[in-house]
């Protein structure tokens, strides 16, 4: 049930604003895994990259009266999860406010390397 020390889990977050009901779960699962001593990396890819936009993270809710997504992202970060976002060729981020909780904007190559190296890879 609990991860051996330093077990690494990569969570690919592909869900985005078109499916808000799916957007909180990856961060909550990351929180639980980090609490169980796993080394967790969340990687925003595809439509999931939209979740790193401050306006989206502050307003998107998985359930109507629930907490905004940023709440779940912060919990995951507090628990120790790392948050990366895919650098998408051709997408200009100039002038777009991103959340402070984002650790790094990363390349597809770095993602591929993590997929090969990590013990567990989930796509949510």
């Amino acid at each position: 049930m609990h991860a051996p020390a330093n077990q690494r889990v990569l969570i690919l977050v592909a869900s985005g604003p078109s499916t808000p009901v799916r957007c909180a779960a990856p961060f909550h699962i990351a929180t639980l895994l980090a609490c169980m001593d796993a080394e967790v990396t969340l990687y925003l890819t595809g439509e999931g990259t939209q979740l790193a936009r401050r306006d989206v993270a502050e307003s998107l809710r998985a359930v109507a009266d629930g907490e905004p997504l940023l709440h779940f992202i912060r919990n995951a970060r507090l628990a120790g999860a790392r948050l990366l976002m895919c650098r998408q060729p051709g997408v200009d981020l100039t002038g777009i406010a991103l959340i402070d909780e984002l650790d790094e904007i990363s390349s597809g190559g770095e993602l591929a390397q993590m997929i090969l190296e990590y013990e567990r890879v989930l796509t949510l």
Partner: protein
Amino acid sequence: MNLHGLEFPDTLRYAPEHSLWLREEDDSSVTLGLTAYGCALYGQIFAFTPKRVGMRIERDRGFGVVEFAKAAASARSPLTGELLAVNEALRERPSLINRDCYGEGWMARLQPLDWPAIRDQFPQGETALAAIAERMRLDNFDPANVHVQALQWK
């Protein structure tokens, strides 16, 4: 003993930084549970998922995960030892922690590596109360607004 309306039995030892109480058993094992202060910070607890019995738990590593309103946190052990038992009743009724944190809501029992050598690291009585009060001060604990703080606690 009472602090801000929260009860702290003077028969127990405390780990203020972990918001846990400790009780030395006759067989030299130690039972752990969340203090009333920990309960106030978490709010309603929805689940407690312990590690497996038999595992060695290092000091400051988690012996389980507590899920509460809108968040989760690792229940970190204040001592190194083997996990001897977990409170199975909490799987079905995690609310026992809130309802009876010093009794039926106990969380885990550990066999410490060298309990006599570390026993005095965990204060009792007025010394414990002063340490818990200091912890509350460092946490900026406001008894009138506990649920907001639960989400800031880690």
